[in-house]
């Protein structure tokens, strides 16, 4: 919302305040100023001149030499290429060192041998457009038709001495989408008086000839007045300028009036050409299905039954609160005008405006909700201006149809509650003074909320009014004493942090990726789309394919991220993410599960590197006795991938990415990924730490080289060794795996180092030997033999 300080001055005394002071104080009392702009920009020393003669430049066809009178007895020779100059016209003249709107300094300069003593300005050079000066052209010299005198400052003549504050108005304050609303805020903030608005005194006897029918409860009030003998003309410069700086294009005096009053009071208005309204009979009703209307923006719209329209007996005249029909708009030939000030249901206006995609200043104000009571002041203000500006005659009374219950909004006020709630200690009178300055009426233990404040409903709302005008900055800072039984991080959250810290200590970098997945990524991963989509959570209103699905695996994003880095010439990558996956179960219940994904490629990447990382996680979480079993995922190498299983529960899986998947993702050849289930890890983890005394007795080590089938998983041998040796086993390690010439075909040799120790005594050789023999015997059953 743009606020002209000149306009503000009509209602509040601000002569002794700077624009910056006003902006910063209003920001702190709740009306946030985003920018401060000076009308006229950097214009300096541009004056009115009068062209007294024009002749052609001898050396250039397109240049004209103008003699311009700049005071009673001084002329300047100014050269221009613009062809629209005429003798006798008033122009804006820059002399040597004058500054135009955008800050450019104008100097005398030579044009083909003749010196130009300054410059005549176009609209653009003054920061203006045709909008406010419809009689001028944009690609030529601005020939000024306003009342002016030679030598006068151009800013005075064109009314460019204004400062405009641009406000961010929150959605609960439609009343501040108006000059008068902001004037009230200014007055309250600076403890100044708010001047009253000049209104029309309706003491006419003759009833209005306009007939109005309201056929919907979505129109709560309809006020209208007939303006006769209308003289359509451009609005006076002051009005045009005020509209211009407010961002509204001046059209003609009637349309400008409706916009002016809307800006001033925040209540939209509309004007119809009365001759185009059948029998001066107006009906406010729901649109018929597919009813057509041609609107002011030259578009034809097809309406729905929920839309509300203003119509006569034959046709729609306007879409209520949104936009008028072209056919009955005010034109240069209009003689009689029907002015409308009405109140329509905000929700309906919002829906219609949204579905037809028409955004107007009117709809913007209606959709936030207006109180029908504010209509009266608005139409009376409009009538007052009609007469003052000599636009037309008012001979009949204002018509007023009410379709609402006149209730007063009274709120019981408890002053000590407000003090306690905010944490201040204001006297009752001080609070009352604040409320009164904002238009509230104080009655005993109640306050009456002014009709323009649709947002005030309870004592907390009153507390805010008091607090913001008193000043949030004056509220003291007092720490609360609240303590609760439970605080800090939960066990799960602590474990999650432990995992994150373990990951980074292992050289992994954390990534954040979107929770969505593009279905084409599933295809690239070789997943069965139909199957995976069946239980996927789908977005009904996505922003393209990328946001159409909630992901069921983190690996699509992981592969995408690895690919992104690979394509950016990053040689080695080790990444992880902890985030959610989403899926529906059979009963359509949605499950959100936290997962960990890991992805590596580059120099040190290998299956066993990844396995080592995962084993570190397991160690950090004290998860023992897991098994790694074969798995089958379409995007993982069938022989270099596995699941992590603990007591028949899968904790996750990992492996080498299939070559074709790497290709699909434009990745290098060797890529390894893992996905682990965070909750399963947490459930199986232990944070308990108990010290086990360090044995003082020596250990005995034995190395065993064993021969077995190539296909024999080493893990089973380890399991057997552990089982047979039992509690004296301290450690079993594999230090070599050999396949080759010295062995039979399809055989391999695995070398183990077995460390044994007793907790409470020295281990004897006999014990060790018998354990080893027993182990070898047991291993023979697995077809595993000692290498000779």
């Amino acid at each position, binding site marked *: 919302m743009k606020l002209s300080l000149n306009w503000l001055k009509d209602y509040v005394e601000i002569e002794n305040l700077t624009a910056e002071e006003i902006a910063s104080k209003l920001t*702190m009392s*709740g009306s*946030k100023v*985003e920018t401060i702009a000076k009308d006229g920009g950097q214009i300096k020393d541009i004056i009115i001149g009068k062209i007294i003669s024009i002749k052609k430049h001898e050396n250039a066809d397109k240049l004209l030499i103008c003699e311009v009178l700049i005071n009673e007895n001084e002329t300047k020779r100014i050269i221009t290429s613009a062809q629209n100059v005429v003798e006798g016209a008033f122009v804006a003249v820059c002399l040597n060192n004058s500054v135009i709107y955008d800050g450019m300094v104008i100097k005398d300069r030579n044009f083909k041998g003749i010196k130009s003593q300054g410059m005549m300005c176009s609209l653009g050079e003054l920061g203006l457009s045709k909008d406010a000066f419809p009689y001028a052209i944009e690609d030529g010299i601005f020939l000024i038709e306003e009342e002016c005198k030679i030598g006068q400052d151009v800013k005075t003549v064109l009314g460019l001495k204004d400062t405009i504050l641009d406000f961010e108005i*929150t*959605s*609960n304050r439609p009343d501040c989408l108006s000059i008068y609303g902001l004037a009230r805020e200014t007055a309250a903030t600076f403890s100044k008086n708010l001047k009253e608005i000049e209104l029309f005194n309706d003491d006419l006897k003759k009833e209005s000839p306009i007939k109005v029918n309201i056929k919907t409860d979505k129109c709560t009030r309809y006020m209208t007045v007939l303006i006769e003998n209308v003289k359509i003309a451009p609005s006076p410069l002051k009005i045009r300028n005020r509209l211009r700086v407010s961002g509204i294009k001046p059209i003609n005096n009637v349309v400008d009036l409706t916009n002016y009053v809307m800006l001033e009071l925040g209540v939209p208005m509309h004007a119809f050409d009365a001759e185009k309204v059948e029998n001066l009979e107006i009906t406010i009703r729901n649109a018929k299905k597919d009813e057509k209307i041609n609107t002011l923006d030259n578009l034809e719209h097809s309406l729905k039954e929920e839309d509300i329209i203003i119509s006569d007996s034959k046709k729609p005249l306007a879409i209520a609160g949104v936009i008028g029909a072209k056919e009955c708009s005010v034109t240069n030939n209009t003689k009689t005008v029907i002015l409308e000030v009405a109140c329509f249901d905000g929700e309906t206006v*919002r829906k219609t405006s949204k579905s037809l995609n028409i955004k107007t200043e009117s709809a913007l104000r209606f959709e*936030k909700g207006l109180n029908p009571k504010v209509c009266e002041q608005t139409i009376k203000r409009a009538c007052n201006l009609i007469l003052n500006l000599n636009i037309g005659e008012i001979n009949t009374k204002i018509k007023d149809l009410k379709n609402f219950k006149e209730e007063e909004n009274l709120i019981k006020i408890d002053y000590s509650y407000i003090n*306690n*709630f*905010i*944490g*201040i200690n204001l006297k009752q009178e001080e609070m009352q003074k604040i409320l009164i300055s904002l238009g509230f009426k104080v009655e005993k233990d109640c306050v009456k909320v002014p009709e323009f404040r649709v947002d005030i409903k309870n*004592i*907390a*709302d009153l*507390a*805010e009014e008091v*607090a*913001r005008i008193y000043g949030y900055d004056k*509220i*003291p*800072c*007092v*720490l*609360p004493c*609240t*303590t*609760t039984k*439970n*605080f*800090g*991080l939960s066990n799960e959250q602590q474990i999650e942090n432990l995992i*994150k810290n373990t990951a*980074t200590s292992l*050289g*992994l*970098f*954390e990534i*954040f*990726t*979107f*929770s*969505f997945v593009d279905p084409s990524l599933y295809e690239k991963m070789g997943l069965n789309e139909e199957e995976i989509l069946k239980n996927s*959570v789908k*977005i*009904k*209103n996505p*922003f393209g394919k990328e*946001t159409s699905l*909630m992901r069921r695996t983190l690996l699509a994003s992981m592969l995408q991220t690895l690919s*992104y*880095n690979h394509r950016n010439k990053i040689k080695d*990558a*080790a*990444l*992880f993410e902890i985030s959610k996956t*989403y899926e529906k179960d059979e009963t359509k219940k949605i499950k*959100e599960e936290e997962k960990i994904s890991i992805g590596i490629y580059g120099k040190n990447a290998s299956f066993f590197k990844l396995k080592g990382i995962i084993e570190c996680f397991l160690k950090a979480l004290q998860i023992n006795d897991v098994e790694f079993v074969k798995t089958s995922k379409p995007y993982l190498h069938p022989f270099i991938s596995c699941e992590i299983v603990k007591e028949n529960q899968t904790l996750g899986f990992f492996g080498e990415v299939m070559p074709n998947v790497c290709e699909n993702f434009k990745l290098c050849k060797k890529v390894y990924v893992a996905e682990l289930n965070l909750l399963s890890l947490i459930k199986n983890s232990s944070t308990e730490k108990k010290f086990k005394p360090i044995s003082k007795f020596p250990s005995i080590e034995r190395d065993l080289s064993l021969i077995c089938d190539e296909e024999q998983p080493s893990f089973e041998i380890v399991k057997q060794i552990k089982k047979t040796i039992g509690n004296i086993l301290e450690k079993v390690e594999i230090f070599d795996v050999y396949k080759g010439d010295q062995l039979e075909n399809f055989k391999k040799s695995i070398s183990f180092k077995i460390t044994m120790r007793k907790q409470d005594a020295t281990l004897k050789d006999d014990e060790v030997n018998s354990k080893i023999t027993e182990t070898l015997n047991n291993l023979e059953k697995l077809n595993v033999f000692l290498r000779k």
Partner: protein
Amino acid sequence: MEDLKKKIEEIEINALKEIENVIDFKKLTELKIKYLGKKSELFSISKQIGNFEKEERKEVGEIVNKTSEKLKLQFDLNFKKIKKIELEKKLQNEKVDITLPGEEVEIGKLHPLTQILNKITEIFISLGFLVVKGPEIETDYYNFEALNIPKNHPARDTQDTFYVEENLLLRTQTSPVQIRIMEKTKPPIKIISPGRVYRADSIDATHSPVFNQVEGLLVDEKITMANLKATLEIFIKKLCNKDVKTRFRPHHFPFTEPSAEMDIECFKCGGKGCSLCKNEGFIEILGCGMVHPKVLENCNINPSNFSGFAFGLGLERIAMLFYDIKDLRLFYENNLKFLKQF
């Protein structure tokens, strides 16, 4: 007798003279054997002591002992000297170019958003807040209705929502966690809740369909706006690690009343006005306010007995300010050249 004394004296003088400048280990060892070994003159003299008269025996013994002690001392001294020299030589040989780079040890980093979140979380934990999380796929009721944003409320327009089903959506804010907690917990309540939120925005330098918020809520008897101000002020001072100037500016949120936005003085220009703060001198940091009485009622908490404050901040926004990041997309591209900088 006198001759013997003279002889010992001679041995001493000769020996000391010979040892004095020997710094070779082998040679010194040989000399030690020569002068103090079993075949040395001194040793043979000491063996002859028994041949002397009783009074003289003592005297000769003392002289021999004194001399051999003196020699031993000199030998030790020289051996030490040799060791020292040898050590110096060894160290000298081990000389390296200490300006060569260190061996590369790759440790990973947490994502900058996690790092900021951890800082924020730590501060609130130290203030006694509980960290809770909630679902991202929410019902219309928790995301809007219970938060005083009924259907067709204009605030719903500004939060373009991704819908899963008619009444099921991707939460647009972390505030539904407030409701879930208040429904099942009696005050006092003191929580923060970080998490992902979603808006149907297309991605650009300052917008993203997915981003992160941290929500805070404190409900108890007699909670005031003064409590809100104090809590958030010490929070931001701790987060910035300095005494930043803050301001609370009235604002509007449907679920708080009074509502405010907290700004901090622009750390780039110190409040003078610059491009970062859009010439305002202050930067918006978070939204906050006193929990709306209707929201308390919706959770069966009586607003005449209890009051509370709530706040919410955007993690990306804070991280962008702290790390001087101009484009939000960087957080989700995960370029390692970006991630390694934090």
